[in-house]
């Protein structure tokens, strides 16, 4: 008898090399979703820390060596994720793993030099994915700058449906209205999914009344979302100019994206060398050599009249302070990058508009990929977003022929508590579903639910 694969409850065997911020985050999320995780790190303390906190196996050593990969069970692995701090090490890990196993491999690649070649690397080295947290963060920042009313925007079905999160001001006309009124009084075809109020997360029911400072998530097509926001008096046009504090990699990628969209970019960076490099790369951007923590410089560069301010320095504390200051002196869009997650509750209460957590973005992308990998094992999740971390998630399913959910009007189906059918995509049409609509085979369906870890669309039925 040879035990070639020891599996429990259909989970996948996943090896995570590197127990940094992203590695730990990934281990936690993937473990919760029923996968068998083995973590590898050179530091015994880190491995110890993760393997006592979570139900995962730990291996100490250099994850790029064949011997250590064997100890971690590379032959039985379905997926290896290399997320150490070094790009070269990550790529080497993947190459070595590919030689001894037919598992999928994902590498974190953060250097712009490699990142521009990521398509080539993926193809030539057989990588399933090259994840660049900084790039992903920049993409997300660019998205909210184009649509500044939102705190966060995720997209489904190639951008045909958006999941928009925004905070309701005290004086909004929406305050005092109920969820039902959005359709009946405003005549907007959007679906309100969740409302976060203080520490509560509520799945929106028809009679829920909005209050000031609520954080609302809604699903709609981009056009309808814009219509809705203009009705309730929000700006819907993109910002015209942006001041970025800190000239790191995220700023580098962001600058590139914004310039492409014709948005004026001003970067404040204190390192001369970095300033010169940025200047050479982006001649049309304004590069300021100076300390972003200096009020004089911020005032001189016209923070008061800027369309947006993005705090991207390496220090979370500095970013938060800069944003708090910016919030006092101007009324533009505010984006704050936070690398460490530890005090997210406190940060949420500071009311800082959009907050970007690069490590969460990266792990969300990978978790999404893992879900998609499982499709072959029977689940059919297409994309997945955490709306409220660990509490509410939005997932996109493709409905298969003969599924129990098809053919009946929604109001006749018995759904579990706290489940919302947020939208149905049929061909090119986007439906915001109402009671008499039906789900047909081939539809893409976006479901918002407080049940995490859905595998099949029928999981939402009683």
């Amino acid at each position: 008898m040879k035990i070639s694969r020891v599996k429990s409850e259909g989970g996948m065997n996943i090896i995570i090399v590197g127990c940094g911020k992203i590695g730990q985050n990934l281990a936690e999320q993937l473990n919760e979703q029923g996968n068998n995780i083995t973590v590898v790190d050179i530091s015994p303390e880190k491995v110890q820390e993760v393997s006592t906190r979570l139900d995962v196996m730990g291996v100490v050593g250099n994850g790029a060596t064949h011997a250590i990969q064997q100890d971690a069970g590379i032959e039985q692995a379905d997926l290896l994720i290399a997320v150490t701090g070094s790009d070269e090490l990550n790529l080497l890990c993947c190459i070595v793993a590919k030689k001894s196993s037919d598992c999928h491999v994902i590498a974190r690649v953060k250097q712009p030099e490699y990142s521009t070649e990521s398509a080539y690397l993926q193809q030539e080295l057989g990588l399933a994915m090259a994840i660049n947290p900084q790039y992903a963060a920049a993409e997300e920042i660019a998205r909210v700058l184009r649509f500044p009313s939102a705190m966060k925007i995720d997209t489904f079905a190639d951008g045909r449906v958006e999941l928009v999160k925004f905070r309701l001001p005290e004086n909004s006309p929406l305050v005092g209205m109920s969820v039902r009124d959005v359709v009946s009084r405003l005549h907007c075809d959007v679906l309100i999914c969740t409302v976060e109020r203080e520490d509560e997360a509520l799945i929106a029911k028809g009679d829920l009344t909005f209050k000031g400072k609520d954080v609302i998530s809604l699903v709609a097509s981009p056009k309808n979302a814009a219509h809705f926001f203009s009705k309730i008096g929000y700006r819907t046009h993109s910002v015209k100019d942006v001041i970025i504090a800190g000239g790191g990699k995220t700023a580098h990628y962001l600058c590139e994206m914004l310039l492409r969209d014709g948005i004026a970019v001003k970067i404040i960076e204190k390192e001369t060398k970095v300033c010169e490099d940025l200047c050479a790369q982006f001649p049309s951007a304004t590069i300021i050599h100076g300390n972003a923590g200096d009020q004089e410089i911020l005032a001189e560069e016209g923070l008061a009249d800027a369309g947006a301010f993005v705090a991207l320095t390496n220090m979370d504390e500095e970013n938060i302070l800069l944003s708090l200051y910016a919030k006092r002196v101007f009324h533009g869009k505010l984006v704050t990058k936070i690398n460490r997650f530890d005090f997210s509750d406190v940060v949420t209460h500071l009311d800082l508009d959009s907050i970007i957590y690069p490590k969460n973005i990266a792990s969300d992308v990978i978790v999404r990929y893992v879900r998609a990998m499982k499709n072959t094992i029977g689940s059919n999740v297409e994309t997945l977003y955490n709306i409220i971390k660990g509490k509410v998630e939005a997932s996109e399913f493709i409905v298969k022929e003969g599924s129990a959910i098809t053919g009946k009007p929604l109001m006749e189906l018995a759904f579990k508590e706290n489940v919302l059918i947020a939208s149905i995509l049929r061909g090119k049409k986007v439906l915001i579903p109402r009671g008499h609509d039906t789900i047909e085979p081939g539809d893409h369906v976006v479901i918002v639910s407080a049940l995490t870890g859905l595998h099949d669309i029928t999981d939402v039925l009683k």
Partner: protein
Amino acid sequence: MNYRMITYILGWILLFEAAFLLFPTVTALAFGEEAIKAFLLTIAICVLASALLIFRKPKHKELRSRDGFVIVSLSWIVLSLFGALPFMFTGVTTSYVDALFETVSGFTTTGASILPDVEVIPYSIRMWRSFTHWVGGMGVLVFIMAFLPLSGGRNMHIMKAESPGPSVSKLVPRVRTTALLLYGIYFVLTVILFVLMLCGGMNVFEALCTAFGTAGTGGFGFYNSSMGSFSPFLQVTIGVFMLIFAINFESYFALLQRRWRDIFTTEVVTFLLIVAGAVGIITFNLYSSFGSVSEAMRHAFFTVSSLISTTGFSTVDFDLWPELSKTVLFFLFFIGACAGSTGGGVKVSRIVLLFKGIAREIRCSIHPKQVKRITVDGKTVEQSTVNSVFIFFACYVIIFGFSLLILSLDGANFLTNFSAVATTIGNVGPGFAGVGPTRNFAFFSPLSKLVLIFNMLAGRLELFPMLLLFSPVTWKK
């Protein structure tokens, strides 16, 4: 501390104990014994107590490190407290301390008894004694974790506290799967032994008791002569299986996966060398008195295997052997089995680390600036692990010393007391002189018995969970 969760798990423990008790109940039914009433009554009490505790599910399932330790030590105590009831209800023992001693000795796989004559007690009680060995051998909580989804990742604390050895490594990423695998290996090996015993001419009752006692490395005899009355084939087979159960179960997992180089680890090789050495010396020492080398070797092998695996079965009264043999056997009490097995003692892996640590210390005194790390099987051992081994050993000696002091109040001779402490803390069973293989522990005072009970539990749970339970820091908010 999460008291609700602790009591909740204790409730489950009692429910499982009720299930375990069905086994001797069936035995009583088969032999038509009066004792069936005692078992049914105990089951009823367990179920009732369990129902009270698991009636409400706790809100917070979070377990911290100290909760894990407390759960493990309390579980073993609760298990023994209730498991002792059949002894009282059947009138096998008249004092509760005696009943508790017998039960703790069973669950901790010690096999030390206070019963002068086991052949007069009901078959079902003898079956219960042997069955407690089997339950306790692999660990009760590991078993429960395999069947109950308790509290996610925090389970590791429990496994760590209950598994023998200086460091616990999982076989596979999930605690639950690991537990299932370990119990799977345990179960299959037990069944193989049971079948072999039947083939060798034992009846079903004898074969079951032998299989349970050997698998758990317990060693309760079900006849007064222990294993002395069985054929040489059976004795040798039991001898081999005692060694098998004393080897790290990770080696069997490696075997199943055909990772050949991981089977014979330093620990396993050292263990086998110690066995070979001890058998050699004792055979040399004994062959004149047994007349033939093969006869001497058989008894030497059985006794060495029995003592190093901390089982405690016997074929002859080794208390009558010459001093050299007795001294060698004495060392085996302390060395014990491999980590990750069902056996007790200090564990071979710790002995290996102790010697390597000493060797390094000597080297460092000669070359004061030398940097040297301890490696086992080509892997560096963390300094913290090495330290914990030395601290473990120091604790072992200190507990040993205090226990000896309390036992000496009773007035038995030094060798009796010394071997009584050694045999209980090492979970072996028989000792020398007054507690030799043909004697029992009945003559000790209740206080001494309680001390020995503590020793057995401390020895089985690797000292610290029990020490933690009695330390005020644990209970501070």
